[in-house]
């Protein structure tokens, strides 16, 4: 890249208005963030359910959850995304046909959130399970001795006490989910990586656009890191500094 004279870089390609592609890239970034946020939230819901199921569920539920997390963690995300993308839309259409509606057109956004959510769910199950196990058993027993119901124990003791243990893992998962959105480019969803490739392909300025997209992803990561640090400081307040 050092060999590339500065005069060769056509910065106007990154302009926000249509001859430039800057606006398209930012729209792609917005799409990526939407999917990352949606998928991550869905993953957190699945993960919370999965973690409690794995720890306190019956033997059948435990085994089924084990199969889910094992399969998702052993198969590449790209393959899972293809399988879930086709299978998910196919199943939904068959379901709609069975109820008596015509085939529905599923938006790429919803499908992307669903796919990322299923993948993230398996990972956050494992992270949350580890965090819940790190809560001292005495605290939960004390809550039970006070006569709290299991829902109350979860809300008042387990959840707040496990958060400091879960946040490092969960924040890594957030960073992973922002990067996993790039894989949706392979199924043709116009998130940042795909629009970058389209922009680069039609202007032939490959290096410029891929570096610009890289800078956007990096900025997203760095901003996330700052926010994560604030959240972590708040969750750990009153605790000894980590070793």
């Amino acid at each position: 890249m050092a060999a590339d004279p500065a005069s060769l870089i056509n910065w106007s390609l990154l302009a926000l208005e249509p001859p430039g592609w800057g606006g398209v890239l930012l729209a792609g970034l917005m799409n990526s963030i939407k999917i990352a946020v949606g998928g991550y939230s869905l993953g957190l819901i699945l993960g919370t359910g999965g973690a409690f199921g794995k720890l306190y569920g019956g033997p059948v539920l435990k085994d089924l959850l084990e199969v889910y997390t094992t399969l998702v963690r052993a198969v590449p995300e790209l393959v899972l995304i293809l399988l879930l993308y086709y299978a998910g839309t196919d199943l939904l259409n068959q379901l709609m046909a069975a109820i008596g509606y015509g085939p529905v057109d599923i938006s790429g956004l919803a499908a992307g959130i669903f796919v990322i959510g299923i993948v993230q769910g398996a990972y956050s199950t494992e992270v949350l399970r580890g965090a819940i196990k790190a809560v001292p058993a005495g605290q939960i027993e004390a809550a039970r001795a006070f006569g709290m119901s299991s829902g109350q124990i979860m809300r008042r003791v387990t959840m707040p006490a496990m958060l400091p243990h879960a946040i490092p893992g969960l924040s890594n998962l957030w960073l992973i989910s922002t990067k996993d959105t790039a894989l949706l480019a392979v199924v043709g969803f116009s998130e940042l990586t795909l629009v970058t490739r389209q922009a680069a392909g039609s202007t032939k300025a490959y290096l410029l656009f891929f570096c610009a997209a890289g800078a956007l992803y990096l900025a997203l990561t760095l901003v996330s890191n700052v926010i994560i640090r604030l959240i972590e400081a708040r969750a750990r307040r009153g605790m000894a500094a980590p070793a």
Partner: protein
Amino acid sequence: MTSEDNTIGAMALTELPDRKGFLKPHRIILMAIAAVLVFCAAWFMRWDWLPEYGWRLAQGVGVTLLMLVSTCILGFLFAVPLGLVQVTGPWPLKMLARGFCTVIRGTPLLLQLWLLYYGLGSLFPQFPAIRQSFLWPYLREAWPYGVAALTMSFAAYEGEVMRGAFAGVPAGELEAGRAYGMSRWKVFRRIWLPRAIHRALPTLNGETVLQLKATPLVATITVIDVYAVVSKIRQMTYLTYEPLLLLALIYLCLTAILVVAFRALENKIPTRGA
């Protein structure tokens, strides 16, 4: 480094289910249901294309494994200095290594791969010096870019792990080595590096599984690995699910083999009180 270990443990499968007490009553029923599902998949889905493409699939698995092994070894060779300079190096090197790790870990691998393949790949032909060099026949192909991207990614992630591993070796062991009159290099070779690798082994296992899961990305730059073979099969046979299910099964087996191999390696190293 606990958060890193925690996530890698959650991200990558590094434990296989234990055999002890495996056959409980409900498990037998579950296994029966699973067997019925597998039977249905084998009976009602179309698998007649399998013999025709078997050899190509095997070649694809070979390419995938080649990618995995070569990039893991190369990446690890880069990761050791990356981790070391972050612990002891002079500050310019330290900043450089930290910047490299941050940039690589902060951007998606797919983007890095396309940056190298499309970006550098479109830049290189403009320089006559490169076109005439002996490297040109290789630079015109796709796989060097795939190897480069995967190696950099593995080096960055593993460099961070090695940084923690180097920093975690007890100072007393290094001081003991110095007290015996070993040179700095000898201390590094005999104590620091082996101890750090030993500490990093469980994480290394997870990273290798993650690397296996990253290899199908090279199919997007026309390297014919097993994922690309399956995509080809899907185009030729118009089947949606069967090839993908087979692909998932192949990766499942590869992951299991990796985990078992690493477990055997870990067990070979004697540890105190284990």
